[in-house]
């Protein structure tokens, strides 16, 4: 049995008929055509499906669509503003932290969640925040550097603006 439910994704409201067992990942990819979020393992172990619920990182494959009701859902498609990449996205590109690209949306969402909460994470904090995201291509170094680059930029900006 399906019910008509309202979802807020990247600031836009959608009305979708969902059945109880529909997971958020499938809602995003198949019902809304937002294929930026990837299905890696489908089991909540690889992080490729990471999205934000009210700014907090979750595995979309392990979230019932119904449980995303009433929350602000942000996907990778929602980071860029007016065609301009978010700082974390630019950092990934500039550091060469993308190879096949499959883990990338999830990695960026996880990194962004960290930066939303902590603008200047230490390298250890970055590693801890990305523990739930696997990459089979890069060996992680450039990914960590990309996030570190954002942290450094935020630190520099903070100094300029007289913030700690």
């Amino acid at each position, binding site marked *: 049995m399906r019910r008509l439910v309202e979802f807020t994704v990247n600031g836009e409201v959608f009305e979708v008929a969902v059945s109880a067992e529909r997971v958020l990942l499938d809602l995003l990819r198949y019902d809304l055509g937002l294929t930026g979020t990837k299905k890696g393992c489908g089991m909540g172990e690889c992080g490729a499906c990471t999205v934000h619920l009210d700014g907090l990182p*979750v595995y979309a494959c392990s979230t019932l669509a119904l449980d995303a009701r009433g929350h602000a859902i942000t996907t990778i498609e929602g980071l860029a503003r007016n065609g301009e990449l978010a700082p974390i996205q630019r950092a990934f590109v500039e550091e060469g932290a993308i190879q096949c690209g499959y883990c990338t949306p999830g990695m960026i969402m996880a990194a962004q969640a960290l930066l939303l909460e902590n603008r200047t994470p230490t390298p250890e904090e970055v590693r801890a925040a990305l523990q739930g995201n696997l990459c089979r291509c890069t060996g992680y170094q450039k990914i960590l550097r990309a996030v570190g680059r954002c942290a450094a930029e935020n630190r520099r900006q903070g100094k300029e603006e007289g913030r700690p």
Partner: protein
Amino acid sequence: MWRQFEYHEPETVEEVLDLLDRYGEDGRILAGGTALLKLLKLRIARPPHLINLKRVKALCFVRREEDGGFRVGALTTYRDIERRSGEVLPLLSEVSRDIGSVQVRVVATVGGGLALAESSSDFAPSAIALGARVRIASKQRGEREETLERFYRGYLETTLLEDELLLELRVPSVRPTTGWAYERICLRKGFDIAIAGVAVLLDLDDGAVKTARLCVGAATPIPQRLLSVEEGLLGVAPAPQLVETLAKEAVRDLETVEDQRASSAYRKEMVKVLMGRAVDRAWTRALEAGRTVG
């Protein structure tokens, strides 16, 4: 994905108990979902009824009691425990930080974890070391309470009956002179399942151990208190040699798990190592705490 189920979204504890009373036998509770959704996808779990607790806000809380103890609602997430500003739960805040990944901790719940009764739990042995109790309710019989230790009956088996709901965890207060530690070993550095874990709580008085509580997790089918080690530590400062001797003896009679992650023998060895580390760290903490208290 298993889809042949009737879906329920209760909003109050009463509604949950009512549903469990009617469908408990055929129902599965969905808390955070990180465990159950996987089972549904693999069709290992095929419940005719799915009871989603996410709207039962009354079970999401961390409350400090007047006596200094804590009450933790069953639907409190590990992230909530980790992040509680100013309300650091002894040992549990630290342990929660390493459970799964961030994405898991945002949704996975304390109650869900405890009820799942996975042998590899880090939280359970730590809560047992703290002397925690669980509060359980059913429509027919009302509320009951028991120690978390007694809650675990066997591998993947708790005392929860089909119509019962785990409401909360009660953590007794710890004295200011208490030190604690949880040490575990995994194959990976993070986001991994423990092969063995040891939780230690030491209270010191006049440079010696006044009370000791030690609990092994992950290496055994259910969390195991090590009474012989606890007794052996009383009245002394825990020198490494003493801990090693006590550990060797305790581990001899320990029934450890043999599985694809590690052998039973390896787990026995690791319990000894972890015990040394955990006791050392807990003791250091207790001394520091003692100094601050003055």
